[in-house]
């Protein structure tokens, strides 16, 4: 039985027995969601190469990966698409039916600025001007209204746009500074409460997160920092697994803007992909059995040019890939209305043509896993988006 069908029928709530209650719980209280934003523009044709396309090797030139079976070759998916060889853990998840890949996907943004691209992706509108906080914060508000509130956490020094808005969220990044004593903290809080409620709310959230982190044994051993995703993914897993922890986490990773010498089976991009792959594997490990109730969505602001540029890299493009992983996902498939790589198939003659709106993936997760109504999704979370139907992910 499909979870959405189950939810949409009031009668199912009356069903006795473990199936109904478990399914209902999965769709409301217990679901976990992690959003991973790859900043800089992941080259979708490098991560998930359509090696079965006749023109693929010629167009990609020095960036092309070999067909399965050759040295440094792609990991096969379905005959047309493969995975970059650095994504071995994701490939295993695909085989286990726990990874779906959306290709030729893009946000509604059609220019080529990182910053506006990320703004549209995170704000959830159709242009960079309409940026009234992030869609995930509005989803938190809608959830609080429709069922009950959930906490969210940003695994970062600052809260990314996607989580900004009226609902207070927490943030956490490893700290080396000694703790402030309780008395001083209480006095600081008193000043904040008297003069600056916004800072007071942030301080409360931070202390709660710090408490959880302490409980989960994260006070030490999570250095690594920098651009390594795995330590943050490990922390995210522990937060999401904690009994009274947040249910939604946002992670970020930079370094995807591969204009020059991005490499093919090995090289700069391969290393970044390897770190992503390790990060997702760490998240799964930390979550343990909770992985079965978890959805992980990995997105980037845009794809890159189909052809390699003059410096063995790729320039800013349009459509790219997104990954949806986790125990909730009906995986082992590539979701794509594949536009092809022929000259006339390309967007403006240079980029992969977008055929799927990225918001359809987000709507799929929020509808299936959290039971958010279509009305909330179409009007509040992603304003004026009723034309964008959710993708069936579960």
């Amino acid at each position: 039985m499909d979870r959405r069908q189950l939810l949409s029928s009031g009668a199912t709530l009356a069903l006795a027995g473990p199936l109904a209650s478990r399914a209902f719980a999965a769709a409301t209280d217990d679901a976990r969601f992690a959003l991973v934003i790859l900043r800089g523009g992941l080259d979708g044709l490098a991560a998930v190469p359509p090696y079965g396309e006749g023109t693929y090797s010629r167009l990609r030139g020095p960036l092309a990966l070999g067909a399965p079976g050759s040295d440094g070759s792609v990991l096969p998916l379905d005959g047309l698409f493969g995975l970059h060889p650095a994504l071995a853990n994701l490939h295993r998840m695909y085989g286990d039916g726990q990874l779906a890949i959306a290709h030729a996907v893009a946000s509604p943004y059609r220019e080529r600025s990182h910053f506006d691209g990320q703004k549209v992706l995170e704000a959830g509108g159709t242009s960079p001007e309409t940026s009234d906080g992030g869609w995930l914060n509005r989803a938190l508000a809608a959830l609080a209204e429709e069922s009950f509130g959930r906490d969210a956490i940003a695994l970062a020094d600052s809260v990314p746009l996607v989580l900004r808005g009226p609902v207070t969220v927490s943030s956490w990044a490893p700290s080396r500074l000694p703790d402030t004593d309780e008395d001083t903290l209480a006095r600081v809080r008193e000043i904040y409460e008297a003069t600056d409620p916004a800072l007071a709310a942030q301080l409360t959230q931070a202390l709660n997160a710090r408490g959880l982190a302490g409980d989960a044994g994260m006070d030490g051993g999570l250095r690594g920092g920098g651009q390594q995703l795995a330590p943050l993914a490990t922390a995210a897993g522990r937060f999401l697994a904690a009994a009274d922890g947040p249910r939604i986490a946002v992670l970020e990773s930079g370094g995807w803007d591969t204009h020059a010498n991005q490499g093919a089976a090995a090289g700069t991009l391969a290393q970044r992909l390897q770190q992503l792959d390790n990060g997702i594997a760490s998240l799964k490990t930390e979550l343990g059995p909770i992985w079965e109730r978890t959805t992980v969505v990995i997105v980037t602001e845009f794809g890159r040019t189909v052809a390699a540029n003059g410096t063995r890299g790729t320039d800013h493009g349009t459509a790219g890939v997104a990954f949806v992983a986790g125990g909730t996902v009906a995986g082992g498939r590539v979701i794509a209305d594949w536009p092809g790589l022929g000259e006339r198939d390309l967007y403006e003659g240079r980029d992969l043509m977008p055929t799927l709106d990225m918001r359809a993936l987000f709507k799929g997760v929020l509808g299936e896993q959290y039971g958010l109504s279509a009305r909330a999704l179409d009007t509040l979370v992603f304003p004026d988006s009723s034309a964008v139907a959710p993708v069936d992910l579960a």
Partner: protein
Amino acid sequence: MLTQATAIATNRFGTGAKPGDAERIGNDPAGWLDAQIGPATAQPAAATRPKSADVLSEIRELRLVRQAAQAAQARPGGQQAAVDPAAIREFGQTIAENYQAQASSLYATAIATDAPFRERLSLFWANHFAVSADKQPIGAIAGLYLDEAIRPNVAGNFRDLLRASIQHPAMLLYLDNQTSIGPGSLLGSRANQGNRRVGLNENLAREILELHTLGVDGGYTQDDVIEFSKALTGWSVGGQDDGPAARLGAMAGRLGIAGDTGAPGEFTFRGAVHEPGSKTILGRRFGEDGVDEAEAVLDFLAGREETAHFLATKLARHFVADVPPENLVAKLAETYLDNDGELAPVYRALIRAEHGWREPLAKYKTPQDYLISAFRALDQAPPPNQVVALATQLGQRPMTPGSPAGWPDIADHWTSGDALLKRIEWSTTLGATVGDRIDAVARLDDVLGEVAGTATRNGVRRAESGAQAIALLLAAPEFQRR
């Protein structure tokens, strides 16, 4: 006691109040700011700093040594004994040492300066023309770039600031322009005949249009980006016969084309990779003119209304409010255009406008603002070898915005619970080291003055120790904002 206007002059327009500012500034805070907008004076420390060209040359030598050592190591049965492991390490160490020195120098200058408005303007423009030290070898020269390209031009004409920034090796290397090759250039056409694929890299052209001049809504198209990147081909850095550019050098050698002749680490024009012919950008035709061609494009862009509006918006956002008042933006843009891009009149219009003097706490400090202002308030200097670790811990590793857009200039990016808690923790640590020597109640009047609210005043006065009083002063909401 600082008046509200003096507190705004020092904390918002400057890098933070120091004890004694009330007397130094007197009753004309706007005049005090105005007096700082003069021609460039030599920075005291600048004379002793190395030149970026020398640092780049040194790094190039070390990279060659490292490559040779690595090659020897990799050779089967190679001469392991002959390889000096120090030679391999020295390359990375030299970059790291330069980075550490320049990061701590950036902090030391901003903490010690007697011209804090001018200093803030320098840091503002360095962030506008951002390079990021997390890309090699930018880390070794990012602070020198500030000294060489930004500081001398901060109160001059925007055209000169634009040209100096774009032509600096830090910018050219950061945005990959040394690798961009005109497909129809001497080297490009010969190479492409031979079935190699070489061509343009759009990175620098796009970011100049989007981030340095017109702004993302400035009306340019993808075709404009490509045409501009053609005009920029050849703008390069001398001595780039190592690293990623080695391929090009070798190719030029094979094709019998004169390779790189520029002085190592200096701006150079490589005619062999310059795309010939005229280029059309925003409807304006630029005739083939070698190195001068892209300069003409930059001058053209600097004079556009879109550029005036974009720069005015960023200045107003930095100095007044995250959402800047439209009439102020219009005033600054008009001043810019009326004065042909001269920046001093724009700064004067900014400090003479009432907008910046209304809300004393409209801007949230970045971690860098916060740390610098805290050290100024306490008359302390951080140990040079701790600056990077400290700033990183508070969420802003020096000179690494990680993107050519620079660090965000809005509160939403910097306000997070975790970041706030780390500021409080650091305040406590610092309070513990100086709390027995500084009278926090008097210091509150010296650096926040009339801006400090009752709760903060009472908190500091009733603290159980000098250490706690300093911690509360630095943790106070009024100290998080400017």
